[in-house]
């Protein structure tokens, strides 16, 4: 395990472990509190497996009242609490604390209400993202944000991380598709933010807690907006002789007034890796490749595809394939979705980075990544949500080689710093968690960070809820931050990753 500085451990509390567990068992059913190391071990990490920590205890409340009582008790006894949804987060947001309880929302797994007239679904936070769409698809509706881990990640976790997906340029991220939440504050107060209407009056507390990574409150109910499925969806698979051609094509498509439903880019290394992995029929001679998905009416989609093809040809595309059926469209996506496991096949270990850049800087950033790759002597493959500027470089290395881990860490931090330098941000969709905590000072100065910390105190005056995440502890820019995958063994490796 990589060494990670966490908030000072309350050693006295560790001695009181049995009392704490006994008190928690008075609030929830005895079987819903896990205290023994053997039982808590499965919860020692989330999907950022480089970091592990056994919690003091794991608690599974079954309803909002129990959650409120647990938090009020912990607040009173000054016990730290780490909330956890499905544990699929990639930045260590649900990493437990040795002197804190891990509050698992897994038993909140029911869809409570579906209202087609008002176009919303009310769900408990442990419901998976995909099951919301599955619950309404028979009526032709869907829930728009589709993070790659959607078969496993929970909607409560999506709110905490403001999850996106490949369609966020056109349909937004979680924050744009959320109507309301029920939350419990650290002192046990149960509150409703937002509701079943558009916007709300007063401060946009709903907007504030979305993406707050479990630092402000615990989510116990979520109301999301659902949309009617588009009539037609088609995708174009376009190969280019250079990275620049692909990057320029992305800019030209946007500049021409087209907002595709999804637009994904891969470099040559990844085209080969994924095509070997799933035989998606990708153009293997291309240096870069785009998947452009368009939706709307039949006529509209046909018209848009024609325009996209024209723009692609202007940018010297070497090949263009248009999906003729939904089956073929999904095949186009299959390779892209297998990007992460495909990298696992190419090298013993890889790190997945997550940063966002202005679209127009793509060629420049990829060139820099290429330069850094030579400097560090580590191969890299690049996947890019070209529509919204979210870049996922996958750095390949072998952890058995001496110092290779440190070298990779430095490489990754250099990439993220460069993202910020060209006007981007440190995160795309994986959050800050513990992963990029110390890099926050690359983006924010002391005033900015202090203002955010004061907001945390407005919700949680003793800083007991998920402390040690998001904001720097070291007050220097430690160079850390990536997803650690050893010999292709990642947590939830069966989940497609974008």
């Amino acid at each position, binding site marked *: 395990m990589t060494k990670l500085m966490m908030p000072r451990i309350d050693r006295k509390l560790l001695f009181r472990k049995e009392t704490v567990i006994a008190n928690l068992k008075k609030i929830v059913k005895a079987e819903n509190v896990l205290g023994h190391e053997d039982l808590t071990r499965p919860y020692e990490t989330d999907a950022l497996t480089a970091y592990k920590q056994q919690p003091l205890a794991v608690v599974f409340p079954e309803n909002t009242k129990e959650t409120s009582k647990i938090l009020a008790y912990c607040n009173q006894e000054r016990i730290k609490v780490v909330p956890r949804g499905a544990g699929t987060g990639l930045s260590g947001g649900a990493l437990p604390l040795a002197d804190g309880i891990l509050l698992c929302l897994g038993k909140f797994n029911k869809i409570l209400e579906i209202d087609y007239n008002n176009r919303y679904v009310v769900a408990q936070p442990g419901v998976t993202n995909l099951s919301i769409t599955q619950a309404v698809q028979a009526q032709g509706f869907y829930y728009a944000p589709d993070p790659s881990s959607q078969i496993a990640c929970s909607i409560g976790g999506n709110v905490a991380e403001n999850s996106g997906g490949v369609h966020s340029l056109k349909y937004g991220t979680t924050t744009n598709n959320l109507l309301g939440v029920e939350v419990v504050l650290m002192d046990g107060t149960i509150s409703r933010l937002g509701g079943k209407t558009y916007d709300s009056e*007063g401060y946009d*507390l709903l907007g504030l807690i979305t993406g707050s990574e479990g630092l402000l409150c615990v989510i116990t109910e979520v109301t999301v907006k659902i949309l009617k*499925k*588009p009539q037609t969806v088609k995708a174009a698979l376009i190969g280019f002789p250079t990275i620049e051609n692909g990057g320029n094509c992305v800019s030209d498509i946007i*500049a021409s007034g087209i907002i595709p439903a999804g637009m994904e880019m891969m470099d040559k290394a990844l085209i080969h890796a994924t095509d070997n992995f799933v035989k998606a029929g990708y153009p293997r001679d291309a240096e870069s490749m785009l998947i452009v998905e368009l939706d709307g009416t039949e006529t509209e989609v046909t018209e848009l595809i024609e325009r996209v093809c024209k723009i692609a040809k202007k940018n010297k595309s070497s090949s263009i394939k248009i999906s003729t059926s939904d089956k073929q469209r999904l095949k186009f996506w299959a390779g892209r979705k297998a990007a992460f496991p495909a990298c696992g096949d190419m090298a013993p270990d890889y790190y997945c980075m997550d940063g966002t850049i202005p*679209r127009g800087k793509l060629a420049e950033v990829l060139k820099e990544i290429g330069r850094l790759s030579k400097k560090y002597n580590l191969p890299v493959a690049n996947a890019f949500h070209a529509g*919204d*500027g979210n870049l996922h470089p996958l750095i390949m290395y072998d952890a058995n080689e001496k110092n290779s881990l440190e070298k990779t860490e430095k490489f990754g931090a250099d990439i993220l710093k460069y993202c910020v330098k060209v006007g981007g941000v440190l995160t795309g*969709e994986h959050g800050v968690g513990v992963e990029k905590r110390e890099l926050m000072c690359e*983006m924010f100065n002391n005033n900015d960070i202090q203002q955010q910390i004061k907001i945390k105190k407005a919700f949680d005056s003793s800083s007991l809820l998920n402390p040690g995440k998001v904001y720097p502890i070291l007050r220097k820019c430690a160079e850390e931050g990536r997803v650690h995958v050893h010999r292709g063994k990642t947590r939830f490796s069966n989940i497609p990753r974008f």
Partner: protein
Amino acid sequence: MSIEEKQDFPTYQGSDFIKYPENEKGVSALIKQFYESNIPIELVGSGSKRKIGKPLQCSKSLNLSKLSGIVEYLPEELYVKVKACTPIKLIEEELKKNKQQLAFEPIDFGYLFSGKSDYGTAAGQVACNISGPRRFKVGSVRDHVLGFRGVNGKGEIIKSGGIVVKNVTGYDLSKLICGSYGTLVALTEITFKVLPAPEGSKTLVIHNLKLESAIDLLGQAINSSNDISGAIFLPTEPECAGSEMNIEKTFKLNDLKYRGSLTAIRMEGSKKSIDERMQNLRNEIKIIDYDISFLEKYQSEIFWNKVKNLEVFSSTKNNIIRIVIPPSHCVHLLYQLISTKFKYYVDWGGALIWMEACELTEEIFDSIRKKVVKLEGYMSMIKPSDHLRYVEEVFTINRDRFNISQNIKKSFDPKRILNPGKMYTGI
């Protein structure tokens, strides 16, 4: 400033009472001074929406109108970064050159407050977070602010967000600033997401429907996959003495063939796509025996501009109330208000009611709010009137949210010097 406005708001005599900082550093230095000497201040841009919210009793004013101008506009990156008090009109004209727009449809409150166009500034739109008819499709102002810079109540310059769609690292303060009516920061710079302006616009108008049928039909249209971007019902009933609302006078368009109530559905995009969707919609919702009109691009754009700019209430002397509720409660609520003297229209397919209330009293206002809250909605007083100049609660809030909001206010503005009491007493 008109004489009427002078009666509602404190007037400032001499330059000592109004400060005009030239840049962000100037704003920061002035607020630092006010913070140190415990002086509450009113933040003003162009003043176009100054009457929304509770009247302020500040002895000093910070006029930010000199912070104006486009800082950076990159059409292919879909963002425009502006100084906070850049006129919205200037931004929209600049975007138009590249066939782009602010998709949340900034509302021109000038017609309501002064009888003529006055869009105000970027910061004003952000501070109020009130969006036009396209809201249900594209989101509100808060969904189009990518980042900002501003000065908090201690005079510290802070920033959040960025220039990219996935803009947030740390807490999303851009959302919090939207709709905060200048009570958290003095905005100095705003980055908006921009989107391609639709090639065309076409409106289907169905004449003479009653409320229930109109709302039902609008709901069906939004629930179809025909990508509707406007859904409004403009009734002629109820009669209300003293009301200025007159839809025939406001919507004098050649292609509106019939008189009576208007139920309008807008589609935007390329001509081919609109025609195809319009045909689909007519088949799906079975518009057969109705009197209908079509407004093509030019007239359609005029129609929706008038709708979003509240021109039906132009120069009214009555109170204007804004109610947002789940669409399926709209009809029920309006029937419950039957004893109130009012005129209204319904936007967002039933989720938004704009109401002109005649002879309103605080008691009636409170009773309407109770009904709205019971139906899981919220409401605000947008325009005071001679009848009712002041209400205690302009905006809706509950105790829990008030407590959190008070703590948030303290975290930005510990001495409560920025627009104190503009939204709620104590915030």
